């Protein structure tokens, strides 16, 4: 099967959240999300309670996928940044190391220039964390997976109600 599955540990999750918190602060952003390319939310920061993050994550991934399809059609490898400008709120979407997607929601209190600058810095930090995470997953002993020992009963119980 293609690619290793994405695994997130407590330690890296905290580091990632710290990077997102800092980005939210320094970019004067409202919300920052980190999403994987398959549309699953990894972490978030800021005023997250007012937005349906699951929907946002899947639409973002669809958006990135469609845009990279467009890029390939015209002979580009990828469009690494997308920017959507609204009347009040804007969304800045960027690819981090071809692996994950960084989404920044901001309004008039910030600017595209500031967001781009801060996103660039945060992307490097996130890349380092993901490099570390991938190494860890590769070297982690197999006994770590909670799913090695699931039974048919466990699975049937999901549907018991």
């Amino acid at each position, binding site marked *: 099967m293609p690619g290793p*599955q994405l695994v*997130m540990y407590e330690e890296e*999750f905290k580091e990632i959240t710290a990077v997102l918190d800092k980005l939210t602060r320094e970019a004067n952003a409202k919300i920052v999300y980190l999403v994987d390319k398959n549309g*699953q939310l990894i972490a978030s920061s800021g005023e997250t309670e007012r937005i349906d993050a699951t929907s946002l994550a899947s639409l973002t991934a669809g958006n990135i996928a469609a845009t990279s399809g467009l890029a390939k059609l015209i002979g580009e490898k990828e469009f690494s940044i997308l920017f959507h400008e609204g009347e009040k709120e804007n969304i800045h979407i960027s690819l981090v190391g071809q692996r994950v997607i960084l989404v920044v929601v901001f309004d008039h209190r910030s600017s595209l220039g500031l967001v781009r600058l801060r996103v660039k810095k945060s992307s490097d930090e996130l890349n380092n964390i993901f490099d570390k995470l991938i190494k860890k997953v590769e070297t982690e002993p197999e006994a770590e*997976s909670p*799913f090695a020992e699931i039974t048919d009963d*466990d*699975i049937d119980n*999901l*549907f018991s109600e």
Partner: protein
Amino acid sequence: MSFINYSSREINCKIVYYGPGLGGKTTNLQYIYDKTNPQAKGKMISLATETERTLFFDFLPLSLGEIKGFKTRFHLYTVPGQVFYDASRKLILKGVDGVVFVADSQMERMDANMDSMDNLKQNLVEHGYDVDKIPLVMQYNKRDLPNSASMEELRRVLNPKGFPDFEGVAPKGVGVFETLKTVVKLVLIELKRGAGVR
């Protein structure tokens, strides 16, 4: 590609409903959405045209309870069935953990079913999947229509490998949850198998 989060103790998996246009993929998701209690589901998103044809995808997040202390979340997607949307279909299939093929039982849709099945296999191969090993469940939908082909015929043409299969009448919910449960089960078994060999 499932996503295991040890921090929030969650496991996320992606299931894609595939099949020919107007076969009932969106109807399957709509029925699941309507019959699932509000705590277990998120918002259903449909990116559709003005005439209710799927343009890009439908999306429905479901929570199914815990296994070994991990919350299980399944993201259900449909693809646009119409032939000319192949580029979109391929994008949605990326990272899939399990596939439901919704076939249209009507005689005159047999060619469309076969084309869609070939297209599924081709797109899976392009994403690097082994077509014989991916968790796949067949649903022969629209069994209530008078012009539907026999089950033997459908199985012979569309399911020679004998993937688990169900008869469906999606708007009435016949076969809908049976199909979902089976694909979820196959995905979790695959996850267990993967965890053992890695």
